[in-house]
């Protein structure tokens, strides 16, 4: 920690962050309080309908949980929103004006949509610090990265995120040497440092201990309001602890939406999902 501070001192006079960083995000028009529109979305793989006329609206600043059995389309939905999968039909809008379909993964990420994968995906051959450094919200073109230097602001924000994810003492360790739960945290940290408008978080507590799960729940609830967070999770206990609004997916479309207690008393939901997985 002292080392970090010392370095930060030394870099006080470092260059200012590039102008224009963050300008993309400000263009998001949320005049109707809705940040993400998903309308009539259909995706099929070899005849299997992964998503079927799905409609979903996420409000700005909301913390939304998506639940559903395996194959309900949760991960496919994230793939479409982040540009990995092209849908057969339907629309995805970010704010009022930005059409996300037809944009590449990189463009969507730069608009302020961050994603955490189901399986923790970090740069295992690089240090925790370097992982966060790469995820920072900076110029992402080749020339900028060739000459990039760490500014003191960069160091501040990295050290802040290291505090949040509790990996400060391991900032110099290779990410591959972290435990499964710590990798999940590192990946969440990589989302945080990118300062996204919308965070899509796929199974954040898989493989975490009860204590880690609790801390993750605290973190995600604390983010809501400042950011919009969409969480996909199987762990019902966890969903119960964080969710205000829950959306249940079933066979590629929305089966029910509402508060956790509404959902739990919904007969259709009980039949297809909760019934199977009490």
């Amino acid at each position, binding site marked *: 920690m002292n*080392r*970090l501070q*010392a*370095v930060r001192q*030394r*870099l006080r006079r470092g260059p200012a962050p590039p102008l224009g960083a963050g300008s993309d995000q400000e263009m998001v028009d949320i005049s109707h309080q809705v940040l993400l529109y998903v309308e009539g979305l259909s995706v099929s793989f070899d005849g299997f309908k992964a998503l079927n006329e799905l409609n979903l609206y996420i409000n700005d600043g909301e913390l939304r949980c998506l639940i559903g059995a395996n194959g309900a389309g949760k991960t496919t939905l994230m793939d479409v929103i*982040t540009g*990995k999968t092209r849908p057969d039909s339907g629309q995805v809008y970010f704010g009022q004006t930005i059409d996300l379909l037809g944009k*590449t*993964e*990189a463009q969507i*990420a*730069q608009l302020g949509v*961050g*994603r955490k*994968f189901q399986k923790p*995906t*970090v*740069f*295992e*051959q*690089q*240090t925790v*610090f*370097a992982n966060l*450094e*790469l*995820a920072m919200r900076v110029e*992402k*073109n*080749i020339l900028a*990265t*060739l*000459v*990039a*230097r*760490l500014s003191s602001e960069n*160091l501040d924000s990295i050290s802040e995120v290291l505090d949040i994810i509790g990996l400060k003492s391991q*900032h110099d360790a290779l990410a591959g040497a972290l435990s499964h739960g710590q990798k999940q945290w590192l990946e969440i940290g*990589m989302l945080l440092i*990118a300062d996204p408008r919308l965070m899509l978080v796929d199974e954040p507590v898989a493989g975490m201990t009860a204590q880690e799960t609790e801390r993750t729940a605290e973190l995600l609830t604390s983010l809501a309001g400042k950011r919009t967070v969409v969480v996909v999770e199987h762990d019902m206990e966890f969903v119960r602890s964080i969710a205000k609004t829950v959306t249940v997916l079933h066979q590629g479309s929305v089966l029910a939406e509402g508060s956790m207690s509404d959902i739990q008393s919904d007969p259709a939901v009980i039949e297809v999902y909760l019934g199977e997985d009490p």
Partner: protein
Amino acid sequence: MTLANQFSPLHELRNKAPVFLTALFSMTLFASVCNLWVPEDSAFHVSTYTITLLGKYLCYALLALSVDVVWGYCGILSLGHGAFFALGGYTMGMYLMRQVGDRGVYGNPLLPDFMVFLNWQDLPWFWQGFDQFWFAFFATLLVPGLLAFVFGWLAFRSRVAGVYLSIMTQALTYALMLAFFRNEMGFGGNNGLTDFKDILGFNLQSDRVRVALFLCSALMLAAAYCASVLIMSSRYGRVIMGIRDAEARVRFIGFKTETYKVSLFVYSAVLAAIAGALYVPQVGIINPGEFSPLNSIEVVVWVAVGGRGTLYGGIVGAILVNYAKTRFTAIFPDQWLFVLGALFVFVTVFLPQGLVGVFKDQKHWLFRRKSVEDVGE
């Protein structure tokens, strides 16, 4: 090491370059002095044959470096880097052919011998300008660079990766080999380009020119090594390594991974082409055999033997394997390919980090033992 240093390319260069540069230049300068100024009957005399051989190794080392940059750092296993090496060689060969002038067998002041032999009347358009060194120099950088750009752009944009990409690079070099074998292509067919006389007006056969070319190879290798250290320790380099380990994550962070891969591929192809351009005046011939897929696979073996992802590993591997090749092919000419194959299998199974990896482990072991002794005292 503080964090600021860890993320400063210049610091990384100061850390890594001195040992490498000292080793490289002490060897090349020693060999050069022993060739030019030590009398021939002395035990320390280095023959011009050896100088040329060492120069050849340095060109191979630069080629290995170019493969390590894409394979070791970005996971792009190119089995066709010999194509860029050979193209660089051909552009230099074309310049050297034009330098021959009317001293060829047929004495034609404009047309190289093979064109006269084929009854061609005019110089083809793509041979224009190659009488100028600067033109050939830029062609050496541009032609392979452009090919790498087009190939890389098509392949990486379509997200071709892994073994499919390796097969495509292999097909690329094979196709070029077949094309260059044809007389109609205008590059001398299967004989290639040879019988060079001068470079920049200096006689290619003289000892001094041989030594100068050898030193040029060493300088280029040193420059390419330093540039690669700087590039790989910048944020750009960390993005490249991220692509190797988790490309999807890099995309979702907001980097256009295709652009990064294309740019690195072009950089690597240009390094390979420079190696080829330095190689040709030293060995005195370039023919389509240089495009042979086997050559490109050999380069990958050098890098694997030396240790990939370290920059110097590939260089060490190229020099050692080629030294072994020179030795072996002199004693058992037919067995060399078996030895090479066995070496590759041995290294892949037992030394996944290459020879450099063994050395690194040894160093750790030494340090550990030393620290235990310190505690004992």
